[in-house]
C-alpha cells in the first residue's frame, strides 16, 4: 500500500462535478505536482486532502489511515498558500511557532525548533520582523517554515510561487525542492506552470476538467504526451490533423503528404482521423533522404528569439513550428523559401482521442 492512497475521489457543487473519480498513489518522500489550467480541479483536490473541502465520494488515506472525514487539524498535513497567508499581527518567529504553541509544546522546545526552522530557510536574523517587512519570497519561505515546523506527514503547496517575481520564482523552486529532499517529506504541489512542474517533480499529474489526463515522470509527460490536452499544455507541441493510411505499418497522411511513424498504430484502422504531435525542437530543415521522415513545405515566418530561432513552415493547410539553435554561420531561410521538414520517425506521436 502506498503512503497516500486516493481512491475514486469526487467533488460536486450541486449539479456540477468538478472532480471525477480521481485516483492517485503517492510513495513516501515523493514530490508530486498537480498541473493544469485554472478550473481543472487541482486546487479542489488539494483542499480535499487538506480538509477544507468536503469529499462528495471516495477515500483519502495517509499511511493507511482514512482521513477524508477528519477536520484539517487531525490530518497531520501542512499547507502553504498561494498568497503567503502569514498572520500579519505576528513576527516571523511567532508565525513559525504558531503550530507548536497550539500543540502546547514547552517554551524551550519552541525556541529551539523556531531557530532550527529559521536556519533551514536561511533567514536566521529575521525572527523579529513582521511579515510586511519581508519580501514576497521571504514571506513564502516563512510560510514554508511555519508549515513544516510541526513536522507534518504530508506537505501541501497551493501555487506557492505564482505571486512572486520570475527570478525569485526560479530560485525558490530550487530551494523548495532541495529542502523537500533533505527532509524527505511527501509533498503535493499544485501549479499551472509547466516549467515548475517539470523542474521540481518526481511525478506530474496533468489534470483537465476534473479528470486525470496523464500521470508520469516529467520526462515521460514531456516527451510522450498521451492526449492532445497534455501535448498542448506541456510545452509547445505542433499538433497536426492526420489520417491513418496503414495502422500496422504506421503510415499517415498529413495534408496529402504521406509520412511514416514507428508502427503499428494501436487501436486504429485505415481512414481514421487522428492528431499527431511533433516537438518544435525535434524537427530540422534540410535535404530529403536518409532514414528520417521528411515533409516538404514553404517557409512562412522566421522569428529570431536570441539563442533560439523559430521558423514556421506551411504544409498545405497546416503549419509546423521548428526551433533550432542560433548558429551565426548558417544563414537563416527567407520567407517564401521551399523547405523540407526532417524528423526522426519516433518523434511523431499519435495521440489518444479523436483527431
Amino acid at each position, binding site marked *: 500500500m502506498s503512503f497516500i492512497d486516493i481512491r475514486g475521489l469526487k467533488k460536486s457543487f450541486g449539479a456540477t462535478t468538478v472532480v471525477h473519480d480521481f485516483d492517485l498513489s503517492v510513495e513516501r518522500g515523493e514530490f508530486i505536482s498537480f498541473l493544469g489550467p485554472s478550473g481543472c480541479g487541482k486546487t479542489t483536490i488539494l483542499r480535499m486532502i487538506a*480538509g*477544507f*473541502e*468536503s469529499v462528495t465520494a471516495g477515500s483519502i488515506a495517509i499511511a493507511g489511515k482514512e482521513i477524508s472525514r477528519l*477536520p484539517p487539524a487531525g490530518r497531520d498535513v501542512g499547507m502553504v498558500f498561494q498568497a503567503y497567508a502569514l498572520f500579519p499581527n505576528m513576527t516571523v518567529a511567532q508565525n513559525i511557532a504558531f503550530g507548536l504553541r497550539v500543540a502546547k509544546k514547552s517554551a524551550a522546545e519552541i525556541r529551539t525548533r523556531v531557530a532550527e526552522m529559521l536556519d533551514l530557510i536561511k533567514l536566521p536574523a529575521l525572527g523579529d520582523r513582521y511579515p510586511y517587512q519581508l519580501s514576497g519570497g521571504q514571506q513564502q519561505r516563512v510560510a514554508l517554515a511555519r508549515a513544516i515546523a510541526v513536522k507534518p506527514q504530508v506537505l501541501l503547496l497551493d501555487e506557492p510561487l505564482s505571486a512572486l517575481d520570475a527570478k525569485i520564482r526560479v530560485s525558490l523552486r530550487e530551494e523548495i525542492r532541495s529542502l523537500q529532499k533533505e527532509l524527505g517529506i511527501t509533498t503535493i504541489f499544485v501549479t499551472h506552470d509547466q516549467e515548475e512542474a517539470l523542474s521540481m517533480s518526481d511525478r506530474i499529474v496533468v489534470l483537465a476538467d476534473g479528470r486525470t489526463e496523464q500521470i508520469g515522470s516529467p520526462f515521460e509527460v514531456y516527451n510522450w504526451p498521451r492526449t492532445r490536452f497534455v501535448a498542448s499544455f506541456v510545452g509547445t507541441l505542433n499538433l497536426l490533423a492526420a489520417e491513418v493510411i496503414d495502422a500496422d505499418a504506421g503510415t499517415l497522411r498529413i495534408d496529402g503528404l504521406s509520412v511514416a511513424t514507428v508502427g503499428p498504430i494501436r487501436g486504429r484502422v485505415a481512414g481514421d482521423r487522428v492528431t499527431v504531435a511533433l516537438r518544435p525542437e525535434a524537427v530540422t530543415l534540410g535535404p530529403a533522404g536518409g532514414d528520417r521522415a521528411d515533409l516538404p513545405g514553404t517557409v512562412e515566418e522566421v522569428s529570431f528569439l536570441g539563442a533560439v530561432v523559430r521558423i514556421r513552415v506551411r504544409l498545405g493547410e497546416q503549419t509546423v513550428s521548428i526551433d533550432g539553435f542560433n548558429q551565426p554561420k548558417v544563414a537563416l531561410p527567407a520567407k517564401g523559401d521551399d523547405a523540407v521538414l526532417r524528423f526522426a520517425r519516433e518523434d511523431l506521436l499519435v495521440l489518444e482521442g479523436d483527431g
Partner: protein
Amino acid sequence: MKKPTFGPWLAVILGAAYFLIPLIATVEFSMRMKRGEYSFEAYRVVLGDPRFQESLAYSVVLALVTIVIGVLLVVPTAYWVQLRLPKLRPVVEFVTLLPLVIPAIVIVFGYLRMYNSQSWLPLTDSRRGTDLLLAFGYVTLALPYLYRSIDTGLRAIDVRTLTEAAESLGAGPMTILFRVIFPNIRSAILSGAFLTFAIVIGEFTFAALLDRPAFGPYLQLVGANRAYEPAALAIIAFVVTWACMGLIQVFGAARGAASKT
C-alpha cells in the same frame, strides 16, 4: 466541514426584528387617528398642513444648495490633492473627519458666536445670510461623507492619465475638471449627494438653533403638540431616507457595472 448557521441566522433575525418592529409600530400608530378604525387620516392632515409643505420645500432647496456648494468645494480639492499634492492628503482627510469629532451643536454654537450681529461678518443679521450660513453648516456636516465618496470615486479612475491626456489635447483646467473629471465620477458624486440629502432633509440642531423654518424643527414642533401626526411624519421621513439610500445603491451598482466593462 459545513458550518452551523444557527447563530448567524439568529443574529440576522433578531437584527431584522429590531429594525422592523419600530417601523411596524409606527405605521400602526400613524393609522390610529380615527377612533375604532385604521385610516390614513394622520397622513391626510400632515400632507394638507401648509407648514409641512413649506418646511419640506425649504429643506429640499437647502439640501440642493448644500449639495452644489459641497460638490464644487470637494471635487476640485480631492482632484487637486490626488494630482498635485498627495502629501497633503492626510491633512485634508483629517479636516474632513473633524465634523465627526466635533459635535454639531458645538459647531453651530460657534457660528452663533462668530457670525452674530456684532461680529465682523454678521451673517445671522439677515434671513438670506442665515440661510447661507445654514447651507455652509450642512456642507460641513456632510464633508466626511461627501469627501470620502468622491475621493474613492477619483481613486477608481486614473486621474493623472486622464488629466495628461486632456492636456495633451489642449484642454484647460476648467475643461478638464468639468468635461473630463466630473462625468467620470458622476456616480460617486451622486452617491455622496443622496447621502447629503438624507442628512440635511431632517436635520434639527443647526436649523433650530439658527432659527430657520426647516423640516427638522417642524417635525419637532408637531411631535411636541400632536399625537398621531408625528408617527405619520416619521414614516414619511423614513420613506425619504429609503429613497435616498435606494438611489445610492442604484448608482453604486451602475458604477460597479461600469468599472467591470
